[in-house]
């Protein structure tokens, strides 16, 4: 056990912290290289929105805002203040919706994204892997070949195009799904009401389909290449010779072993899937993190963009870490080494 902690756990904890540290530092630096200053953004936006401002009064306002946004001091001081706040779980106020804390807004949007993202990722993971394994196990099957080509093509097509094609096809030309939002206008979200949940599901079909379709091909091709080695492994040939049924071999011998690296890959692609969800939510007007991020981008809301980026870095890092921790449960070889 001690060996396990030293050889397995400690390096992974270090990796986990490195990811978070590097990611967050980069996230801190990049926005500050941008040409715009959040305080000026605020002042200008207010003027553009038609508030009459006396020129002389702008100065006093500027000072007040700089202080409030925590932008005073040298960049190094700001950096340490930043970490200090982060460790306290305080991502600061949203600049665009001052003084609402960024974490509160993310907290509100996150469940929508997760409710969509998690089932979509799981579905595409299961089906992609299943079909991928089947396609290398049954190399002659025509239907699987068609699925493979389709999956591959869709996978490489940008999320935006897949989303817009689905939207146009199934909301405009064949209007069977709603074209915007997570529930109808005028309805209040009520997760205890079955009717509402059904409405929400109806709204989630196309956005989820986008993520599933794009994700599917990746798992498919990954599984196919993993299993193409495994199907010629001795223990597979052996049980084939022993007359085990194809399904049993596929599930217990081929998928069971090939799925392990796929779990690690699952954690790795979460960052990419997140980017996809961002675009998808924009196309479908789905009220999650993606919509929040796009609005923040359009309003130069640095603290919000940063909050979202930090959340997703931490989220993905935690997911990777958890996967690493859970991995020994699936793979006895690691467990006993």
């Amino acid at each position, binding site marked *: 056990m001690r060996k396990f902690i030293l050889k397995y756990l400690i390096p992974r904890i270090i990796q986990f912290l490195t990811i978070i540290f590097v990611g967050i530092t980069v996230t801190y630096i*990049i926005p500050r290289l*941008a040409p715009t200053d959040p305080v000026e953004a605020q002042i200008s936006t207010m003027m553009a929105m038609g508030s009459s401002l006396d020129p002389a009064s702008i100065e006093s306002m500027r000072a007040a805002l700089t202080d409030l946004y925590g932008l005073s001091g040298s960049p190094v001081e700001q950096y340490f203040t930043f970490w200090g706040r982060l460790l306290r779980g305080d991502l600061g106020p949203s600049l665009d919706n001052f003084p609402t804390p960024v974490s509160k807004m993310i907290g509100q949007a996150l469940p929508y994204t997760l409710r969509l993202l998690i089932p979509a990722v799981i579905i595409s993971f299961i089906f992609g892997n299943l079909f991928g394994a089947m396609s290398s196990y049954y190399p002659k099957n025509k239907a699987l070949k068609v699925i493979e080509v389709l999956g591959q093509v869709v996978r*490489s097509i940008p999320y935006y195009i897949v989303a817009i094609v689905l939207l146009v096809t199934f909301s405009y030309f064949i209007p069977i799904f709603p074209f915007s939002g997570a529930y109808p206008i005028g309805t209040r979200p009520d997760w205890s009401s079955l009717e509402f949940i059904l409405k929400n599901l109806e709204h989630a079909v196309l956005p989820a389909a986008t993520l599933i379709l794009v994700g599917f091909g990746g798992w498919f091709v990954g599984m196919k290449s993993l299993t*193409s080695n495994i199907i010629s492994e001795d223990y597979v040939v052996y049980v084939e010779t022993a007359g085990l049924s194809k399904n049993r071999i596929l599930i217990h011998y081929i998928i069971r072993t090939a799925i392990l690296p796929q779990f690690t890959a699952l954690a*790795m692609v979460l*960052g990419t899937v997140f*980017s996809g969800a961002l675009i998808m939510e924009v196309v479908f007007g789905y009220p999650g993190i993606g919509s929040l991020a796009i609005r923040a981008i359009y309003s130069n809301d640095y603290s919000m963009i940063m909050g979202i980026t930090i959340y997703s*870095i931490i989220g993905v890092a935690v997911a990777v870490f958890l996967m690493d921790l859970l991995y020994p449960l699936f793979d006895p070889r690691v467990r006993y080494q």
Partner: protein
Amino acid sequence: MILLSYNSPYDPGKSFVVPWDLPPSQEHLFGTTSRGQDLFWWLTFAVRNSLFLGVLTAIISRIIAILIGLTAGYRGGWLDRVLMSLNDTFVVLPLLPILILLGFLLRDRMNLFYLAVILGLFGWPFDARLIRSQVLSLKERSFTRTAVYSGTSAFWITINEHLPFVLPIVFATTINNILWSIGMEVTLSVLGLSDLTTPTLGTALFWANQHGALVAGVWWWIAAPALVTIVLFLGLYLLFTSINEFIDPRTRLRLIGG
């Protein structure tokens, strides 16, 4: 299509050179846009530019991936751990917000070339990991050991002995990388964050959206670039699989029976 762009009767930078909003016809194969451009000819430039971006990105990211993958794989030890930590960090970073911020930063200097460089700088980690693991397995083989015992420097071992084995992987993933970068360009362009005056597959969709092509009934302005993108991706994908089959010794082995 790329070659055709050199024969285009129209300058893609010019608007109102043909009647606008014409549906596809013999004269205008893909119809004309609301800006009075012939969509077919315009898209020949778009495909050319998008492919240029993809290839450039692929080249840059390949160089980085090879350098980092070979170094990490061969040197091992702390250097490997540092490089792979960096690698995993790049994998995990949500790229889109970062690209958007960089788009803000570079503003109109964000042309295709810079975009390719930036995408190249972000597009390497998956491949570097792949190359590293390949090198790790090569390291265990006898010829490496022989070379090590015979005193060949690490650098030359890497270049002479490992690169030839690694290159097939590099080629195999190139097309994926090209597709990825073209896709990123589309995403950024649709958000209006790239060089919008250069015709690309992304800017085609951007301007179509800007002109409300969908509700205006100018469906071909959306359909043509989407179709061309899909055909292009399909073509590149098929190229990818056949190259892969050709290069991958395992597949080849299976095909000829061993």
